[in-house]
């Protein structure tokens, strides 16, 4: 099983006296995993560690059972897309992909085929012979993604891959992530765009000041945040009556009638109790409930509860 996981065991990384990450323990399964945290929280450090670009000060890292200081074994497993534009000078899109495949040791025919496939995957086939320096921001982001997946790696590590993309390109890129994740790859994404992260992630890792604050599926993380009342949106035909009944309960902290008058936004310290009680109310009053849905079990809310107010994140 550990050969299908990326594991960090008590990993710390210091830059001189500055903390990168400290005592991180993680086991990342396949699927899309998002790293979320404010600037300087340790996201890029975590990515650099798992790609072998830097070594931990202490602790043990295994990437599908391989140590990151074994580049011959790790290289074929990983595709890395860095946060900043990182292109050697003077290359066309085709040359860029081709040459970096050659560095992986593939032969000429294989590199040519994979270069063409990768260019087509990110919709850059027509711009293949143009210098990368002449690409737009979105195109540069896509060619970076192409170099990360051209060798068909098991793990794709993407540092802020949605930065600078227009909404259309962003949607296309997210589709690619989902496709890659759906193929059983590990797709590790760091992003500041929390609502996008929420949409695509199978699990999230929240980081703050070099520590892992929370990890796992976001709903699970939210349910662990006990000190913040859960918000639930109930759409029904008798919101006033429902609010009146709810206010009698100790676990209900707040109940707000929805602006359109067709629902209630509730804050409760015990969601399970609320669901049981709602069943009773519906049976007793015969009110029609259209929907009941948690309103704050998304990444953005969890982020605000756990990290909130530290800045640097939208």
């Amino acid at each position, binding site marked *: 099983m550990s050969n299908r996981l990326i594991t960090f065991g008590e990993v710390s990384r210091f830059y001189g006296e500055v903390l990168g990450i400290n005592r991180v323990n993680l086991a990342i399964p396949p699927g899309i995993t998002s790293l979320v945290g404010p600037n300087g929280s340790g996201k890029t450090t975590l990515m650099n560690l798992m790609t072998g670009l830097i070594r931990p000060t202490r602790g043990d890292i295994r990437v599908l059972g391989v140590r990151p200081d074994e580049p011959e074994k790790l290289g*074929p497993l990983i595709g*890395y897309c860095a946060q900043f534009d990182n292109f050697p000078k*003077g*290359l066309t899109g085709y040359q860029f992909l081709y040459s*970096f495949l050659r560095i992986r*040791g593939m*032969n000429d025919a294989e590199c040519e085929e994979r270069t063409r496939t990768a260019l087509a995957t990110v919709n850059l086939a027509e711009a293949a012979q143009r210098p990368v320096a002449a690409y737009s921001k979105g195109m540069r982001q896509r060619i970076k993604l192409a170099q990360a997946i051209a060798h068909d790696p098991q793990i794709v590590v993407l540092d802020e891959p949605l930065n600078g993309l227009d909404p259309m390109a962003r949607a296309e890129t997210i589709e690619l992530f989902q496709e890659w994740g759906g193929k059983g790859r590990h797709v590790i994404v760091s992003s500041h765009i929390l609502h996008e992260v929420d949409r695509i992630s199978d699990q999230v890792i929240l980081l703050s000041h070099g520590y892992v604050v929370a990890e796992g599926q976001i709903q699970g993380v939210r349910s662990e945040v006990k000190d913040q009342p859960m918000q639930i949106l109930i759409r029904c035909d008798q919101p006033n009556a429902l609010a009146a009944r709810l206010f009698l309960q100790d676990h209900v902290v707040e109940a707000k009638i929805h602006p359109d008058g067709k629902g209630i936004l509730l804050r409760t310290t015990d969601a399970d109790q609320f669901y049981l009680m709602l069943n009773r109310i519906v049976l007793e009053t015969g009110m029609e409930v259209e929907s009941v849905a948690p309103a704050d079990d998304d990444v953005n809310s969890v982020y605000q509860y756990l990290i909130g107010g530290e800045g640097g994140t939208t």
Partner: protein
Amino acid sequence: MAVYKKTYRPYEGPLTASWSRFLVIRRYAFEDLRRSRFLTIFYLASFIYPLICALIIWVEHNASALKLLNLEQASRLIGVDAGFYMTLLGWQSMMALFLAAFIGPGLVSPDLTNNALSLYLSRPFSRTEYVVGKLAVLLTLLSLMTWVPGLLLYALQSYLEGWDWAAAHTRIASGTFLGAGIWILLIALLALALSAWVKWKPAAGALLFGIFFVASGFGGAINAVQDTKWGYLLNVSNLVGTVWVQLFEGDDPTNNGAVFFRQAPGSVIPVWLCWAALLVLCLACLYMLSRKIRGAEVVR
């Protein structure tokens, strides 16, 4: 946990030898250089002097040509000996220094500026291979300017003079190869180290010249003020010249250095010290490179 169907296709075919992957770096570097008309012309011009030398050797062995030019005594004027080849090497080495100053600064600094090192180092490609790849660009170009024409001229002279001459002058061949090798390795390492530390290319190129000319001037000032000869340790061309003399003529030299590396009387410092100083300089360059060539820039 979600269940995924693994459908991606990782590469499982044969791989090229890992030692040969540094050659990929050369591939596009040469193409990039070829686009510069100035560099192409300069590079071609650097072969003029070896061609003149070839002409001299040919003329010297062609009695009718000598007679035609009324230069029957020319062989006494221009002897094709160690001095002849050291002069060739000295001239070509100076051209090589200029070329390294033009090309070298553009090899590493753009990768650092563009954060491109993570691209290389997140692959099965080490920092050493990266440096070797960049060195290979310079070493290939500089070799073609220095020891390759030198050895071709040695072969020409041996062919025309007879293989006995070749056997009696093997030091010329080994001296040309090793002497040029030391020189081009030194300037290539210096150019890369400066390129890694100085991102503005003209400044890096100027610094490369500075190491040779300003440092030697500084060394000369030390000699004058302190009435010593140890200031010559700062004169890189002096160090190389001393090593060349030993390589070409052994421990009993008749020459005091090639044209561009002539040593002033009384400036001779022990050969082992020159070797040691050059080694220290190379190690310093490697240290500078190791500090900068990293997968992730560490911001403190």
